[in-house]
């Protein structure tokens, strides 16, 4: 917070004299700063409190924001005391001066007045990421969630209260672009080019010393993150304050839960995953899974497995997962595997029930296909396998040959078989698919609904 609003000062306007000529009288210090950082957009809401010294009558407050990425149109100042005595009537962006604004303030009181200044800035980001560690039997997983906050804003934020917003915010303009405009609100009729923020690399070296100093005084206990819902978003408030110099990132633990029950779920769907089986970890964000307190933000999960008694780890896969609301189930895609195999075999095919039109040409027929599906689990742990079959259209009938596993019609052209296999086991199920072509599809008595 060195540069931002560095020349914040109260000016007393002399009647009739142009504002540019008034003198700086006091320079208030910043008391606190709070950062609310968004991850769906490059945007942070900064809120700082300062004490201004006002005089009765007209006051002009000058502030500047050079070398920062703040959006000047978002600046707002509100008195936190004597609000009815202080009228912040206008904010002026004077001509031919860059990165500077003047607040014209009419005050009926004199003396120190606490004010709150808020603005949107860019360059501060955060993301969530996860580490999962499966037990050897793969029945439970230790789930560690982290947030990583990165500061490329051009500002060193010292002792800031840091809050993170989980949610998808609708915005019209990129804050970084607004921050770099020549004129805060642009010019009449102009078309605005989109600019991207440039990371301020040279600042990193300066910040290095400060970070080292901070690391030495780091506290032993990880900070807690308080989570609460607001509107459609979740607010994570990090305990205490944080110092994140420009160019630096910080990793903080969001939660660490051991023994989350998981299901090894394997999926087979040729149209989607090809001929290999894809492995998923299935769990639910609810109390039964020791979760369910808050939604889980989207992020990357790296999954390990305890390999032996000496706590060595093996890498199982990596999955990016979407935002998980409370009580929703999630399936984490760990990629294709070779140790669970699904082989659908067409064992018989024939046609029947031909129809002919007035010219004795074929106008309809049935196609009958008998499938046998073999599912093999070569692993040492149980596996649940979902086999999804997609058909060309809605005109079909399916007859199961046996009662192995369960069956579900997903929609008009999709069915799903689910089988559960014990370690090192094999199951086979079969079905007969009748597909109606041409006018046979239009004979309602011949097909299922």
């Amino acid at each position, binding site marked *: 917070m060195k540069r931002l609003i560095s020349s914040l000062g109260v000016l007393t306007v002399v009647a009739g004299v142009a504002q540019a000529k008034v003198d700086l009288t006091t320079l208030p210090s910043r008391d606190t700063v709070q950062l*609310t950082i*968004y991850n*769906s957009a490059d*945007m942070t*809401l900064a*809120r700082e409190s300062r004490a201004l010294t006002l005089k009765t009558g007209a006051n002009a407050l000058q502030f500047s924001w050079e070398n920062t990425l703040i959006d000047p149109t978002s600046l*707002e100042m509100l008195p936190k005391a004597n609000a009815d005595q202080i009228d*912040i*009537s*206008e*904010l*002026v*962006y*004077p*001509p031919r001066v860059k990165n500077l604004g003047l607040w014209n303030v009419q005050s009926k009181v004199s003396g120190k007045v606490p004010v709150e200044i*808020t603005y*949107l800035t860019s360059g501060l980001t955060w993301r969530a990421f996860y580490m999962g560690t499966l037990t050897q039997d793969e029945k439970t997983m230790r789930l560690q969630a982290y947030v990583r906050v990165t500061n490329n804003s051009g500002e060193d934020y010292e002792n800031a209260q840091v809050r993170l*917003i989980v*949610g*998808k*915010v*609708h*915005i*019209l303009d990129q804050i970084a672009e607004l921050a770099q405009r020549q*004129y*805060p*609100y*642009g*010019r*009449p*009729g102009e078309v605005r080019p989109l600019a991207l923020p440039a990371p301020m690399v040279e600042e990193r070296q300066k910040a290095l010393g400060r970070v080292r100093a901070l690391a030495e005084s780091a506290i032993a206990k990880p900070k807690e993150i308080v989570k609460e*819902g*607001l*509107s*459609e*978003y979740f*607010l994570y408030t990090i305990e205490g304050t944080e110092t994140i110099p420009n160019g630096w990132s910080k990793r903080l633990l969001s939660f660490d839960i051991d023994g989350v029950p998981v299901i090894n779920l394997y999926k087979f769907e040729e149209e989607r995953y090809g001929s290999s089986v894809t492995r998923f970890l299935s769990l639910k964000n609810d*109390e039964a899974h020791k979760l369910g307190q808050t*939604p889980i933000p*989207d992020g990357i999960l790296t999954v390990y497995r305890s390999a032996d008694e000496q706590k060595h780890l093996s890498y199982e896969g990596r*999955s*990016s997962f*979407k*935002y998980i*609301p*409370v*009580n*929703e189930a999630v399936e984490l*895609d760990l990629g294709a595997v070779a140790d669970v195999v699904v082989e659908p075999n067409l064992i018989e095919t024939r046609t029947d029930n031909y129809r002919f*039109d007035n*010219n004795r040409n074929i106008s309809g027929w049935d196609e009958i296909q008998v499938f046998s599906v073999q599912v093999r689990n070569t692993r040492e742990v149980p596996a649940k396998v979902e086999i999804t079959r997609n058909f060309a259209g*809605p*005109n079909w009938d399916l007859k199961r040959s046996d009662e192995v596993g369960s069956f579900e019609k997903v*929609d*008009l052209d999709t069915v799903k078989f689910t089988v559960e296999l014990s370690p090192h086991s094999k199951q086979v199920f079969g079905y007969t698919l009748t597909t109606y072509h041409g*006018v046979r*599809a*239009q004979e*309602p008595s011949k097909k299922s*609904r």
Partner: protein
Amino acid sequence: MNAKRAMVVAFLTLLCATTTQARIKLVALPERAATVIRLDNPSATLIEEERVLTLQKGLNKVDFSWKGVQIDEDSIRLQMLEHPADVTLLSVSYPPGESALVWEISSGGDFAETVRISYLLSNIDRLITYKAVANKPETLVDLKSYLVLRNFSGEDFAKARILLDYGEAFEQGISHEETKQMLFLNDPNAPIRKVWKFDAATLPWDPTKLENQNVGIPVSYEITNNKAGGLGGFALWGGKARIFQQDGHGGTIFLGEDNAALVPVGEKMELYIGDSRDIVVTQRKMREAQISIRRNNSEQVVLYDTDEVITAKIENFKDSPAVLTMIQHIPGQWDMEECNMKYTKKDAGTLKFEIELPARTEKGPAVKELTMHYHRRNVRP
């Protein structure tokens, strides 16, 4: 008006003894009496200024020229305020290659005539922005609107009366390249309605078919421009609106921003703030068949009806209730055989459902399932 830089509104009273090409200009720079900047039309800004012209009995030529500003030549008007019956504007001529025009004025006497000159000036305008802070339960907003004056016209206006399309004119000076932001509406307790909307034509039907993506249900606030909302005095201009919410700790969070359209009195302002990922809609087509098929002599199908079933499972994972507006579309001629929820027809092919969703419980999300069984009629292949 300070004529240092630009718009040299130079008034040259020309001696019209000769009609030769050489324009001998006798400069009489009249003082401006009053300037009005009219911002009531968002597409152009009208400047009206009053000056006193010293006119002699007979023909007078007055030269009006400008430099460094963009004036719509055809928009320039001259109005006599004191002796309209005796002072007549005969003609307007435009000298070649100059930003100027010459008025030929016939005067019935020697007058110091106050005139009003009106013209459209480019690169000076106003914007409206909104800042709304919702309370924590999202039932009310503190709605503030700011007027942003932008002057890039090339002219400094030391003092002008600024007129919007309603309300009192106010005095304000604004220099060239200056931008001023002024609070002009403060409505502390405007009631709002929060709306979740799923439109089956624009959002994916089945989120399970997407790879690791949430389908966000758009969330909007509705503010009605009426007396009950502390508004209703005038149409609300369109502009960028930023919406915040009180966080319960003395601060706010930013909820989102949207462009508000112009809202006439009595109408609703709808502000899209962001997407909810805690309401999940899974829509599927469970049946689609041709029935009542009619054929020609060649056995080709020429006409048929359809038999269609669509289901939509709506899950609320939020810890608070919500009302989801669901929009479904059925094209052409159709009739509903069975539908387990009430709907209204917005138009021939658009169905609107208002689905009340309770909050989630310990057992899981609140779930409702819509089933529409309908027939499209007289479809031609």
